[in-house]
């Protein structure tokens, strides 16, 4: 029995049920004039069939060996990156591109790259300014100025 596939089947079945219900409430219509929920309903049904098949294979199959997890506990690096990106997204518009990017890069250089904080800070600030110059000044991209709005480092 493969537990991860069983969990996957349960999630897919849940999604299928949701789509069938949503398809119905959006309006299935009929084949001569399919409604807005027509496709969702059919995809939902297909998902339910797929979930049943996946569950069947999971029950009949040999246990899975599980995902490759690095023995050094590197998963924490990936989780830290996700957390850093989430904080970055929350702060970006309020604080502005240059400060948030400098902090993000510095943190990642320290945690992911293993650089000493002074060097990481120098690289982070440099990277943020270089990116700002490239995208805002050269490519005219619209990045949030935040706290620096109205200064020469704003847009």
């Amino acid at each position, binding site marked *: 029995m493969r537990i991860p596939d069983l969990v996957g089947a349960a999630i897919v079945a849940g999604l299928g049920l949701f789509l069938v219900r949503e398809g119905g409430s959006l309006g299935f219509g009929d084949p001569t004039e399919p409604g807005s929920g027509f496709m969702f309903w059919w995809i939902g049904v297909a998902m339910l069939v*797929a979930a049943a098949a996946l569950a069947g294979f999971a029950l009949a199959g040999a246990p899975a060996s599980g995902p490759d997890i690095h023995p050094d506990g590197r998963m924490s690096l990936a989780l830290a990156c996700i957390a850093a990106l989430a904080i970055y997204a929350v702060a970006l518009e309020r604080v502005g591109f240059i400060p948030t990017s400098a902090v993000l890069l510095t943190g990642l250089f320290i945690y992911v790259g293993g650089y000493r904080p002074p060097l990481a800070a120098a690289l982070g600030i440099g990277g943020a300014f270089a990116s700002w110059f490239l995208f805002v000044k050269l490519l005219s*991209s619209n990045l949030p100025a935040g706290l620096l709005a109205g200064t020469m480092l704003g847009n």
Partner: protein
Amino acid sequence: MDLLGQLGNGFLIALSLDNLFYCFAGVLIGTLVGVLPGIGPIAAMSLLLPATFAIPPTGAVIMLAGIYYGSMYGGSTTAILVRIPGEAASVVTCLDGHEMAKQGRAGAALFVAAIGSFFAGTVALVGLMLLAPVMIAAALAFGPAEYCALMLLGLCLIAYLSQASVLKSLIMAGLGLVLGLIGIDSINALPRLTFDRLELLDGIGLVPVVMGLFGIAEILKNLEQGTDRTVVTAKISRLWLTSADWIASRWAIVRGTLLGFVLGILPGGGAVISSFVSYALERRISKTPERFGKGAIEGVAGPEAANNAAAGSAFIPLMTLGIPPNAVLALLLGALIIHNVPVGPTMITQRPDLFWGVVASMYVGNVMLLVLNLPLIGLWVRCLSVPYGILFPMILLLCCIGVYASSGQIFDLYVMISFGVFGWLVARWGYEPAPLVLGFVLGPMFENNLRKALILSRGSWMTFIERPLSAVFVVASVLILATALVPWINAKRKEMATEE
């Protein structure tokens, strides 16, 4: 106007200073992302997509196409020198290419990869040029039923040919279809699955989805699994082949080119599968198969030619039918739509400048790539010495910039992060992101054509069987799914997909 005349006009467009610059930028960036593991052509293209909004559509497509075929060239460098494929199509090149490098024949391996890629890329372009008008004539017979059935075939094929289980790939494709349909219904103007969020009324953006699945997820995977590199640091000399090498590799290049060209046209096929099939073919027909995996030059020449031929021929269904055969070209289709370029059979008649300009630019780009990949090999090797501790944070920042700049909405950053985490998690349990992206792009077109086909046939599902072309696609789809359920065939399929 005859074919040569149209190609001549294409060269006039491709050789203009602006387009030469876009072509050079595309192949340069493509080579770079091909060389650097951790960022592939899809991530690079989505990163640059916002930057193309300000340039004319022809220049934009020339640059984005350059990234795609450039990455096919560049991917072989890391595969040979580091044994890390820069992108998925170079996985098999690692096997014999790196062995050759360890034996002091890195120059020969790099040369045969470059020359094979150049030959295959050029042949694929001739094929594209000759086949496109024929395909367009055939496409005039396409109605909604045929388009719908062809898209179904594409989704089935990409699931069948993926390395993951067919069932899991189909689930991902279905999920992609659902995600692609979020937003206002184009026929009834009803909001669908928007959960009262204004940001979702226009649907989920392609850029954050792709950047999340192929950019963020890839970095997270690399961080978790670690990336050890053993770069062959010996000076690369003698970028030339011995006569024995020429004899061994010339037919492998020709076979790889033909194989890649055919597989590249098929929906769901493309560069990755063609390189695997080419390697298996070369080993099977070799009189000394035991040399494979130990530095056989055919094991580099065949797959490299195949993946480049496939990269070229994959443009045929995109530019003639408006149907992308793989995830990378799905992104290119998204770019064409954003630039208001008519996609489908009318593209060549309505925008001949774009079609022939892009075709001609590929010739130019192939020559640029030859120059970039042989004399400048030392430069690319030096790029490999950039520490991942620097590279990964910078790529993450670039992903954030690309996504925010494309829409100006912070919501898209959340979407990107969510899809990054999703892609990272599901990859651990054997689900691939490519079918999701193809489903996502095809979703609205698929639904539109399905509903039109049913309305035109007064609700008869038999329309998909009664129309000959549609019937062929439907039967092929059913056969593919049926064979995937036969245990022996499925075992063989998995063996082929994961061979070596």
